[in-house]
């Protein structure tokens, strides 16, 4: 279980968030949704220890930690593949830097390549394959971290609609097949509704949780469900209200 309590971050005497609380139960898919510029990325920077928090605690599996830098894997909207390494070498980076058994890691990576439909592209360089394949490779690399918690920073927002759809199902595999706990930040309401178990609607300035919505039903969900559409409408209304409020 990931638990964050009273997390505070101040920039230039303006608090980005103060007293932020969040609890994500093991193997859940939590999605934080809010408008751009609400402080989501700063929140991830604090979680991963890139910038220090100005107050608050976080814990993982009941154990208090300073940050989640050594505990979480991370996937960004850019695939962040190194252009000078093949897809396979890219996916092996966490094993190389983590000092694990490279031989074992290699066979596991090749297994994951075939599971995620990348078989035969192991030796390709990133620029030789499509954006969707690059992001799938980034997904393999994320799994190769061998960490139970995965932080997703708008991981699919740079992809086109069709590629996105197939990758959404792959993200769900992280939860269903690989038993990971996921925390994703996004501003895409549709994506959040399709993937999340727990949806956290964020308020702005300072960032806080304004509403938690628990979603049910098999995933990936479909938008022919009137209940889901109603939720979507209400979320959009609230977010729009926020934007009007900010611009006033």
């Amino acid at each position: 279980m990931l638990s964050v309590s009273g997390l505070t971050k101040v920039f230039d005497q303006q608090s980005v968030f103060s007293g932020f609380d969040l609890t994500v139960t093991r193997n859940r898919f939590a999605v934080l949704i809010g408008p751009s510029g609400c402080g989501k990325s700063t929140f991830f920077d604090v979680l991963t220890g890139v910038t220090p928090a100005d107050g608050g605690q976080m814990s993982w599996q009941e154990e208090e930690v300073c940050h989640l830098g050594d505990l979480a894997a991370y996937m960004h909207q850019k695939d962040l593949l190194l252009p000078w390494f093949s897809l396979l070498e890219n996916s092996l980076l966490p094993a190389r830097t983590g000092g694990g058994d490279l031989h074992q890691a290699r066979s596991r990576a090749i297994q994951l390549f075939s599971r995620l439909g990348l078989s035969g592209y192991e030796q390709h360089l990133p620029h030789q394959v499509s954006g969707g394949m690059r992001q799938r490779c980034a997904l393999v690399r994320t799994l190769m971290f061998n960490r139970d918690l995965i932080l997703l920073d708008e991981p699919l927002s740079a992809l086109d609609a069709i590629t996105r759809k197939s990758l959404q199902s792959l993200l769900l595999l992280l939860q269903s097949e690989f038993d990971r706990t996921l925390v994703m930040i996004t501003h895409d309401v549709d994506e959040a509704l399709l993937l999340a178990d727990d949806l956290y609607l964020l308020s702005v300035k300072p960032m806080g949780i304004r509403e938690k919505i628990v979603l049910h039903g098999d995933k990936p969900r479909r938008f022919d469900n009137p209940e889901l559409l109603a939720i979507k409408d209400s979320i959009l209304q609230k977010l729009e209200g926020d934007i009007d409020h900010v611009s006033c």
Partner: protein
Amino acid sequence: MSRANLLAVVILVLLLGLWEAACRILVIPIFILPPPSAIAKTAVLHAPLILPHALITGLEIVCGIGLALAVAIPLAIGMFAYSWLEKALSPFLVASQAIPVFALAPLLVVWLGYGMAGKILMAAVIIFFPITVNLLEGFKGCDREFRVLFRLMGAGFWQTMRLLYWPWALPHFFAGLRVGVTVATIGAVIGEWVGAQKGLGYLMIQANARLKVDLVFAVILWLSLMGLFLWFGVGWLEKKSIRWKNI
């Protein structure tokens, strides 16, 4: 042959033709301006004389590049790793560029004598700056997201250097080296002009004093060829080591 190459050849031929024609029509004495044909003839016929000197100059340039790299690479890495080191050293680096290095040449003769050491140092001093600065800029240009990724993967500084920063900075490094190798030739030759017993610069001064202008030009031709060779050598090395840029 591409259109660009064709045009380059045409321009070269035109220039040489114009030069040749001017020398013949205006009957310019050979000790003032020899025609290209005479220069080419001298460059080939005097090859046994020129070659040993060219080898010396070439060795000076290569050693100068090696010395510059040996200082520039650790310095750039150090300045990248510790920003206080960069802040402390950058005024000196800039100041070292403000000194007209060629003016140091006579001093280097006094300090290091007529041998190769002074010329190597001269070449090294000139090219070390563009290489250091370019490499440092290359390291610093690495995207923040990649740094964060490596941090989260638990990579140490040297590991990140090897896997991320160094390959990232390679194109910048080669840009600096490309500029460097061509200027290194100038450094070595000026060092030889001021005081040497061997080398193409020395040969030039000797030939000039005896009004053997065709030999002077022949040496310049050899020097240019060496500079071109180095330029393309670096280009070849760059292509070999940066295959991912050929998108």
